[in-house]
């Protein structure tokens, strides 16, 4: 139960300040349509961020459809054969980004660029910024996300 306006979910809270949250949502939704990095890869990274933040509600959300086995094995992606080399490079990058963005190595950035290019790295970083932001907002407000939204 959020502590700012009782009874509202995260999206309803965002709706209370539309002049800013509208711009945030526009950026959030734009990343799923970028040509530089696939929505599937981004969704896996978003779900991994949700796991790292221990946000069960964000992990339960589906912004883009990924397979049930991929969801089930996401926490153990390094040992799983369900993830492509592009997924692996982006997931490794995401994990360090979540913990300490200054600890990202040139090798980790190069691995991402090898699969999705320099513009893909920028697109991934922009996506991680809004994914991480929305998850943190839900946690600090103690407000769950509403329902399931589909992209793509």
């Amino acid at each position: 139960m959020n502590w700012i306006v009782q009874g509202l979910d995260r999206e309803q809270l965002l709706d209370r300040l539309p002049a800013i949250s509208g711009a945030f949502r526009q950026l959030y939704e734009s990343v799923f349509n970028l040509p530089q990095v696939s929505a599937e890869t981004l969704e896996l990274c978003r779900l991994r961020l949700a796991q790292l933040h221990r946000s069960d509600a964000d992990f339960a959300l589906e912004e883009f459809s990924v397979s049930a086995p991929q969801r089930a094995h996401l926490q153990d992606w390094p040992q799983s054969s369900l993830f492509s080399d592009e997924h692996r490079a982006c997931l490794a990058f995401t994990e360090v980004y979540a913990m300490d963005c200054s600890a990202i190595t040139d090798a980790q950035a190069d691995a991402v660029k090898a699969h999705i290019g320099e513009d893909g790295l920028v697109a991934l970083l922009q996506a991680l910024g809004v994914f991480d932001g929305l998850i943190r907002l839900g946690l600090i407000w103690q407000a769950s996300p509403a329902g399931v939204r589909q992209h793509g």
Partner: protein
Amino acid sequence: MGSHARVKAPSQNTGNVIRDSALGIVPATVEPYLALNAAVWDAGPLSAAEVELARLRNARHTGCVMCQAVRYDVAISDGLTEEKVQMIRGAEPDAELSARERLLVAFVDQYNVDPAGIGQGLQEALLQEFSEAELLHLSLLVAWFNGSSRCAVALGGMPEAMPRMEISIPR
């Protein structure tokens, strides 16, 4: 931290620091990026000086040298002094900050360190001091600056130190 820039900025020179940065190589997000940045400064109830204090406190957490060196001119015009900026530089904010400013810093710290762990005491103090719209503004501006600051750090090439720079909001 990456010692060299990991992405080449576009060769264009529009005079807009966002369009001319590495972010410019993903054109589809540039306009939403600029719109959100402008909204955070223009469309919420917190003063520009308060927005800047929160932004600078956040930059301390992300370790973004560039973000810490920048001062937005709207915040200076709003009365933000360098003395005040120095008061939020330490691990523990200066005791001479107002109660409202200390709460603002506490929220930014909580967002960065442990958003899920916000305690009832801080919640009640924030509700006592800030209106609903102010709390939502504070939340969204921290989310925005945190993401953009992390992006700047992760793109590499950050110098170890930079001189203080006063800039306008890029639009």
